[in-house]
């Protein structure tokens, strides 16, 4: 944001409105005031955030590697074909953009270089600055940290389209209609995958069907307050549990909830357990416990492809 604020000042100056900088500064600073007050009254947040992202750590990337990382944010493969590396933020069967900007975006950059317009300059600088937060955090292909690429890329693509059809104005409407149709068609394909096979591919990235497992636990309580044990191997299970209990109005189960690493026959009779079945060791332990009669299998929780990801047990 400070980079975009500096860009705002640049545009203001370039347009001969240098005296208006104070309005821009006021607009930028206004929302920051409560934030600054809050940080001042909660100083540990800043230090903890710095520590979480390991700023100042010796393990961090060197400047040369970061340069390379920055470069890859403009890779055509990333922007137009495969998207980000994390399936939470990308399906990996489509890029960040549809295919149309593959030619239009570079054309837009060329158009701005040949004849810099204020909008074009802002869009170009905005595009170039978009990956900076991700670079500061040493993250590559993290579109979630560089989403500003999208609006600036679209604006540049439109500038590129205008530039390309300048020589043949008669083709403008037909070209635009074709591009829209092609992009819409590509989006249909993307949407079909997004609501289809992507759900299967991305299941592990979303920690599998933990929602189904927690719902099964609540369902099995039958409205009563029973001891609940949640496998510590399930990432963020406590947060998911709190969310789900609040959503279904069963916060009474919170106090009765404990975590566990290994199945323990000492848990009270009637306890309900949610076990991660994607961990082979845990799965083997669970099978053995069921065969030994220590626990009763209540329900298997499956993924869209039928793979069992969790089991609900009862003591």
């Amino acid at each position, binding site marked *: 944001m400070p980079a975009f604020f500096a860009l705002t000042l640049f545009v203001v100056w370039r347009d001969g409105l240098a005296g208006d900088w104070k309005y821009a500064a006021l607009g930028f600073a206004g929302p920051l005031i409560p934030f600054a007050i809050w940080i001042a009254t909660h100083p540990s947040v800043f230090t903890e955030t710095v520590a979480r992202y390991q700023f100042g750590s010796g393990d961090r990337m060197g400047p*040369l*590697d970061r*340069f*390379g990382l920055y*470069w*890859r944010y*403009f*890779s*055509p*493969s*990333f922007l*137009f*074909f*495969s998207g980000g590396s994390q399936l939470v933020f990308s399906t990996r*069967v489509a890029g960040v953009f549809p295919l149309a900007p593959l030619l239009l975006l570079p054309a837009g950059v*060329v158009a701005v*270089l*040949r004849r810099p317009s204020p909008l074009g300059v802002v869009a170009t600088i905005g595009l170039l600055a978009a990956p900076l937060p991700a670079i500061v955090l040493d993250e590559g292909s993290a579109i979630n940290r560089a989403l500003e690429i999208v609006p600036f890329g679209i604006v540049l693509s439109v500038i590129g389209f205008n530039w390309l059809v300048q020589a043949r104005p008669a083709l403008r409407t037909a070209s635009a209609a074709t591009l829209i149709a092609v992009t819409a068609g590509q989006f249909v394909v993307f949407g079909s995958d997004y609501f289809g096979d992507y759900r299967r591919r991305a299941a592990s990235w979303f920690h599998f069907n933990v929602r189904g497992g927690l719902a099964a636990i609540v369902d099995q309580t039958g409205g009563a307050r029973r001891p609940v044990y949640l496998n510590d191997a399930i990432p963020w299970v406590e947060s998911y549990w709190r969310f789900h209990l609040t959503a279904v109005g069963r916060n009474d189960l919170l106090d009765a909830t404990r975590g566990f690493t290994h199945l323990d026959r000492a848990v009270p009779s009637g306890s309900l357990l949610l076990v991660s079945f994607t961990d082979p060791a845990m799965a083997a332990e669970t099978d053995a416990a069921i065969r030994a009669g220590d626990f009763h299998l209540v329900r298997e929780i499956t993924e869209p492809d039928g793979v069992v990801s969790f089991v609900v047990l009862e003591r």
Partner: protein
Amino acid sequence: MAVVLAMAALSIYATRLDVSPIYLTHDEVIYARNAYSIATTGRDLSGQLLPISIPVTGTFYATPANIYLTAAFLKVLPLSEVTIRLPSVLVGLLCVWMVYLIARRMLGVTCGLLASLILLLTPAHFIHSRLGTDHLYVVACVLAWWAVLARDGTSIRPGRMFMASAFLGLSLYTYLGAAITAPACVAITCAWLVMAGRRDRTIYLAAIAGFVVLAIPFVAWHLTHPGQYAQQVRMYALYDSQTLDAAQGARVLAAPASVAERGAVYWDYFNPSFLFFAGDTGLLNGTRYTGVFLLPMLILIPAGILVAMMAGGSSRWMLMMLLAVSPLAAVVVAERYRINRALIMLPVAAVLATVAVEDLWRRRGRPGRWAAIVLIASLPLQFGGFYRDYFGDYRVRSYPWFEYNLRGGMAEIIHRADDGDEIWISQSLQWADYYWPFYLDVFGRRELGPRTHFLDPARARLNDIGAGYALCRAGEEQRFLDAGFTRVTAILEPDQAHTLSVLRR
């Protein structure tokens, strides 16, 4: 003046070829052995008479150009590490001269000299001009094609066009990657003619025919050796050539995932980190002291691209198209940061940088001129640092990449062995079966060849082998000592690391 400059360039490039790179790579040894065989018998190591494609090992076939040029050198010079690297020096300096011709035609004599200086001081060009391998030869052919086009311009006549394209056909015999690059350059030629408004069909036919005529023996050879294509596909892991035919393989390569992966590789060849800071990932093709280019090029190349795009014109667009296709060979095999597969980029960048300097000097007033002076003056300064490191610490960093001091170990045995001695070489010494006969020829001790045995020290019954000398890794030495051998000498690296041992029973 030209002679003085040539001698200066030669003295920079040809000095101490047996010092750095520290040892020979296995590719250099393989090519040199075939070259020596052709020079002395007319046949390669497999017995083929003057072959077009030379079988090396397993699935690997070498292109003939550098082998034949090296054979020509070996006709008049003795076999040595210096001799087998001299052809690359010659080709490297030839490239420098052709860049001068191209830039002189585009921008004038001074800019021609500047472009040749920039290429001369390009670390990747210097490195590859001192390796006895084939990567630089395709650059010479492409520059010859470009030089003809630059000289004649878009009013070129069919005869000259045929000659220009013939150089592209010739490039097929220089480096495997030319099979990708040469057709791309033919396409560039046609696009260049279209942009120039040429409508006469004969010029396009000449552009294609020149390439095709010289490609015919290449294609014919592959048709009579159908297995080679599949083997090379396997070697570069393009697709499973045992279960897929060429058409199916092409579909695999054109699949979205493959295109996406190769698109990423292509983009990474223009990564500033690779080009200006870190260079090649391996220490065979780079020192990692500098990038592919020196630092001032970080400004000059983008500036040159900008100037070329703004100025337009057929010669400027030719530059841009050449830059765009320069990494294609590397992209097809999906290998990142291997500049040896994209060396065409080097002279193109030199001309682009010269375009930038010319623009700074003529059109940007005094600040532009000072900027040009500072940037150009910085080149030899940084090159000096690179040069010092190249002959210094680079040798120490890089010796594992050059198969360790096999030369030292083998020379010890060759000098000591008597007529009756058997020689035992550990199979763990990769490529030793190529290095050994090479050094036997270098030192004129071929008679030791039939008495040489390669063994696995972990499995062989070392107690049962006869008297003689052994060469093994330092870590294997104890097995030989336990079997009654005594150490003759420890073979050390420049950092005094003991990597090999020469033993005797």
